[in-house]
């Protein structure tokens, strides 16, 4: 969970920043703060945050500029905006442009806590989904590679079997033993790749292709 472990709070009111930081730190979140949009973006450039809580009204760069930066550069970061009761429309605008949630000032800490927890759950879920997607990709690639392996495997095994046939009764025992070993090894390789194939298909909830099992 290293990627989503941190929260960045951006607010030009230092007291607000500090109190949110203390409150969220107390319930186990790692929190950084920035006093305006510009320093907020600087922090975002140097570190990954799973969640950014930003005030909308700030001098220099405001919350919308921060949101724009996040949308363009940190696609997995969720945003919660904070705004005064007087400017509900800006909260609506923020949600429309992609904020995950908004909090109206003045607020009860419980509200922030709930909002942050919901955002965190969503981040966790997205990470799990991403993991599952990657796993499925690996399994699919493994199935293809396993299938492709069957061609070279049929070459080693096939020629070794042909050699076996050509080695008559009077052939060198050592050569016979060596050729037999290649045939046997090819068979066990095939058994291993088939086993792995079943495992990968199981992982993808795919039923195995019916097989005649020539070996």
């Amino acid at each position, binding site marked *: 969970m290293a990627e989503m472990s941190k929260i960045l709070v951006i607010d030009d009111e230092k007291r607000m920043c500090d109190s949110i930081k203390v409150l969220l730190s107390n319930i186990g979140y790692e929190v950084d703060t920035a006093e305006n949009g510009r320093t907020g973006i600087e922090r975002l450039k140097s570190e990954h945050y799973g969640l950014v809580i930003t005030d909308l009204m700030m001098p220099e760069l405001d919350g919308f500029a921060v949101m724009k930066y996040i949308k363009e550069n940190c696609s997995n970061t969720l945003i919660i905006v904070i705004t005064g009761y007087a400017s509900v429309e800006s909260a609506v605008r923020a949600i429309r442009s992609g904020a995950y949630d908004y909090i109206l000032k003045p607020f009860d800490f419980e509200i922030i806590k709930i909002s942050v927890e919901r955002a965190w759950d969503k981040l966790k879920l997205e990470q799990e989904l991403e993991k599952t997607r990657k796993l499925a990709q690996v399994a699919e690639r493994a199935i293809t590679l396993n*299938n*492709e*392996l*069957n*061609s*070279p*495997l*049929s*070459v080693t*095994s*096939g*020629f070794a*079997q*042909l050699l076996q*046939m050509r080695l008559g009764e009077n052939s060198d025992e050592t050569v016979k033993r060596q050729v037999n070993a290649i045939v046997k090894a*090819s068979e066990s390789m*095939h058994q291993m790749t088939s086993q792995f194939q079943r495992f990968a298909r199981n992982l993808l909830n795919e039923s*195995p*292709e*019916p*097989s*005649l*099992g*020539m*070996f």
Partner: protein
Amino acid sequence: MADKRYVLIVDDNEDVRQLFYDIVELSGFTPRAVGSGVAALQQLKTTPFDLVILDMRMPDLNGLDTFKAIRQFNSSVPVVLTTGFGMDKSVQEALSMGALLCIEKPFNVARTMKTIQDIVEKESPKK
């Protein structure tokens, strides 16, 4: 040699092609091997083959399409499929359209030789 029987091998993998070439030769027939479906169609238009051994996974023209194209001008030549990818949909479709059977790679050489011999003797007995 009027009673020579020809077997066409179609596989994009050169070594697999050579393997089937040797197996067909050892089975007592005359092999011809090509690396693509298009080359196979050209061969089939000029030579009367007694059996086609056709790989299902090939770039450009795949095994199923090659099989369908063969059937458009030759309804009788026996076709045996080969695959490293299990009995997937394309194999099943080709089998339902009259391909005789599918050999899954890797395979047992003795059994494959027997299969090839049985098919050639049965489907095109010596005249």
